[in-house]
């Protein structure tokens, strides 16, 4: 292991070569290991077994048996059910027939992907690994695009995969924008900003099950606090729960309400850690707010933002409490997320099916996580 600092620790003054010093020097060299090993070991020890066990379960069928239980190996059966078998509409959605519009949209996406691949191929250095990676990426995105284009309208119905994608991307978009906006406002020298900061933290602290029940109460159109408004609008006989997108919107609102503080607090810390000199200098030089933001603030918080979005991305894919409590996954299966889908199977003792869905979620998250990390983060660091 090489450390940057090692190259700088000079032997300026010959320290007395006492026993203690040798030990300290040795400990210093080992610092690299000492710092990271406990974490690595802890993660390894506790994650390997569950990971491998659940992988095996996803390839098996669970049965209660005398004296315990039985796991019967069935190969890719559980996965086949999701993609080709009875769980297909549940998982991928009900596909509407192709129309010129869908072909057009799909063609647009294909062109974009082709462009992306071409860009890579035209670079000076390409490697087989890189090429395969990008091909897989393009294939994956094309597949997802096909699915989305055919299920979003025209009588198509979203499956749990698409619903989850909607929750994740729409949710994170709003959470970030709101979080950033609020952070920038509270970083200003305003009297009373500490009050706002503490209040804005509150939603994140409520247990997710609690938030779900709270929003269930709030969105109840016959008993909740907004009933008079609802009645005034003449919508007494209409309930958002009967409409797929209405239900999804309600869940998105609850999700955004709950997790904007996450973005908010991290961005506040990041904004506060900015060194002050460049900002003052820029103001003195006459730059206006937008310019300061664009050239100084934004690059400074970009790395933290990327980390933040990645973390939130991973967490958002696992959403389950809100659909479970607010709508029970309804209407129909419209608000079911992937974790909810796994949960339904799990409750019925279909542990294999549940693990299969969980692994598909894992692949999906890894897919997007890697996209994010490799392409965006790399490019961000370059730009700095």
């Amino acid at each position: 292991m090489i450390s940057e600092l090692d190259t700088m620790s000079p032997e300026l003054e010959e320290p007395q070569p006492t026993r203690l010093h040798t030990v300290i020097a040795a400990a210093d060299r080992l610092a690299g290991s000492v710092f990271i090993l406990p974490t690595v070991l802890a993660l390894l020890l506790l994650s390997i077994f569950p990971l491998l066990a659940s992988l095996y379960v996803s390839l098996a069928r669970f049965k209660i048996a005398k004296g315990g239980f039985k796991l019967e190996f069935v190969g890719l059966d559980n996965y086949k059910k999701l993609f080709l078998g009875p769980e297909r509409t549940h998982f991928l959605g009900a596909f509407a027939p192709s129309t010129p519009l869908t072909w057009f949209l799909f063609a647009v996406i294909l062109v974009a992907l082709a462009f992306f691949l071409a860009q890579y191929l035209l670079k000076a250095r390409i490697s087989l690994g890189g090429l395969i990676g990008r091909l897989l990426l393009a294939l994956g995105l094309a597949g997802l695009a096909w699915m989305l284009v055919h299920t979003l309208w025209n009588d198509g119905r979203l499956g749990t995969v698409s619903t989850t994608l909607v929750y994740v991307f729409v949710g994170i978009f709003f959470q970030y924008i709101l979080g950033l906006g609020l952070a920038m406002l509270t970083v200003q020298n305003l009297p009373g900003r500490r009050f706002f900061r503490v209040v804005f933290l509150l939603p994140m602290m409520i247990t997710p099950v609690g938030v779900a029940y709270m929003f269930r109460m709030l969105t109840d159109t016959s008993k909740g606090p907004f009933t008079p408004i609802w009645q005034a609008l003449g919508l007494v006989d209409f309930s958002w729960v009967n409409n797929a997108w209405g239900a999804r919107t309600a869940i998105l609102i609850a999700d955004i309400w709950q997790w904007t503080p996450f973005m908010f607090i991290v961005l506040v810390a990041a904004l506060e850690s900015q060194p002050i000199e460049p900002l003052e200098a820029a103001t003195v030089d006459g730059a206006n707010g937008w310019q300061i933001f664009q050239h100084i603030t934004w690059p400074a918080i970009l790395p933290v933002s990327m980390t933040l979005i990645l973390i939130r991305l991973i967490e958002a894919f696992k959403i389950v409490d809100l659909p479970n409590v607010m709508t029970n996954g309804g209407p129909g299966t419209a608000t079911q997320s992937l974790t909810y889908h796994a949960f339904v199977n799990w409750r019925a003792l279909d542990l294999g099916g549940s693990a299969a869905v969980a692994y598909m979620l894992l692949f999906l998250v890894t897919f997007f996580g890697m996209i994010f990390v490799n392409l965006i983060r790399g490019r961000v660091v370059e730009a700095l």
Partner: protein
Amino acid sequence: MKSKNMLIKVWGMAIILGVLITACGAPATTEAPAATEPPAATEAPAQTEEPAATEAPATEAPSGKMFEGVTVNLLTFVGPQVAEPLQRRGPDFTELTGATINVITVPNSELYQKALTDMATGTNAYDAFLFAPSWIVDFAPAGYIEDLTPRIEADPALQWDDVAPFFRDFNSYNGKVYSIPLDGDMHMVYYRIDSLQEAGLEPPKTWDDYLNVAKTLNGTDLNGDGEADYGSCISKAPAQQSYWWIWSIAAPFIQSQGNTQGVFFNTEDMTPLVNNAAFKRALEIYKETGLYGPPDESNQGVGDSRGLFISGRCALTMDWGDIGPLAIDPANSKVIDKVGAIVTPGSTEVLDRETGELVPCDETTCPYAVDGVNYAPYASFGGWAGAINAAAEDKAKDAAYAFLSYMAQPAQSNADVVVGATGYNPFRISQFEDQQAWIDAGFSQEAAENYLSGIEASLNSPNMVADLRIPSNQKYIQVELDRILAEYIAGNLTTDEAAQQLYDSWEAITEEVGRDSQLESYKATIGAK
């Protein structure tokens, strides 16, 4: 240098590994979860000094209490319903026998998983469970729970014969009793006596009547607050009770020859009885009740619809027995003495299994019809019952059985079932016949008669329906049926599509598990030949 570096790293890791392992090993000795080793009973033999009527003497001995020092870990779900009586009577039981009853509660939706993982993995932290008897079909064949038949036979205080025959059967599997009922569950329809009288309507006898009443009263003001109320409140949220309500509607159309005829599957070849005119009619009725209910009914659970009925906003509802005691609660109820209970509506047509079509009721097709209407009350869920972990220690098992018996004995049970908050509904014949207890609890004479006769009529019906109790029943009912119902109610499937999809998915499960074994299981649980 490099290899030395490497060696140091390797040894360093090995040492750290070793340290971690030993550190993990240490707590094993100091922190053995208290639950897996109930303190060995101080063998101070117990004397049967306490009133012999309330105890099943498990051991007999001279001095001290019978189960002195024994702890029983009883798992159930968080109360107050169902758990509260256990927690309240626990100390009384301790007084009598010296055993400590430790009631452990978990959220209702996870009770099954907790019990299952505990027994399947051999943890056995719990000695007894208070859960749904339909689960014994999973636990009994695997040997997780104990066969209680010998204990019951040796326990006259339990008055097993007083337990309604239906509940005795429901708590048995393959002829052996595995759980003791503390609660009896079945569906009934409740109606507003005053509203129906005013509109000149009779309590519904068939489902068409029900729809008619609901339609007429929908939109009228039922609780005097000036706002329009609902004709029918039957909750339809997914993953709630949808998959039970549908059978209360479908059963009278499908089953007419008694419960050995079967209502879920054909007893010849195990094909599902769902892709036919009867089930489709039931689906349509179920959906139509939604037209006369609150707009967000498809997101409501039974707690919501119950609350609506009790606050006077519904003319009709379907529910378990809870509404009876809840309706007379002066603190919360706006419909005191206005609630009537009837057996769930029946049908004047019944399924011809050969053709898949509906035929009118007559002496051959509906031998048990009353006034030309075929009733098939559905004892859904069956009622909370107590079972004992077969792998628990003997003393703990004895004490657990004694406690369950104590709870189920008339002295305690009759007091609990008249109080709505306990969540226990009547299951003993004496509980229906003794109206006085109900009147003492606050029912008026008419209300008591009405409520109890509704229950009695249901229980005495020779055409009663029980839950599906074959392997993978959760998949059939709580996953597939629930999902298809939800899609149907949401308007994503037509009636024919829903019936067909249900048929296909049930067939897929049957094929997967094994048609012959499922058929055998099914016939065994309904007593068919």
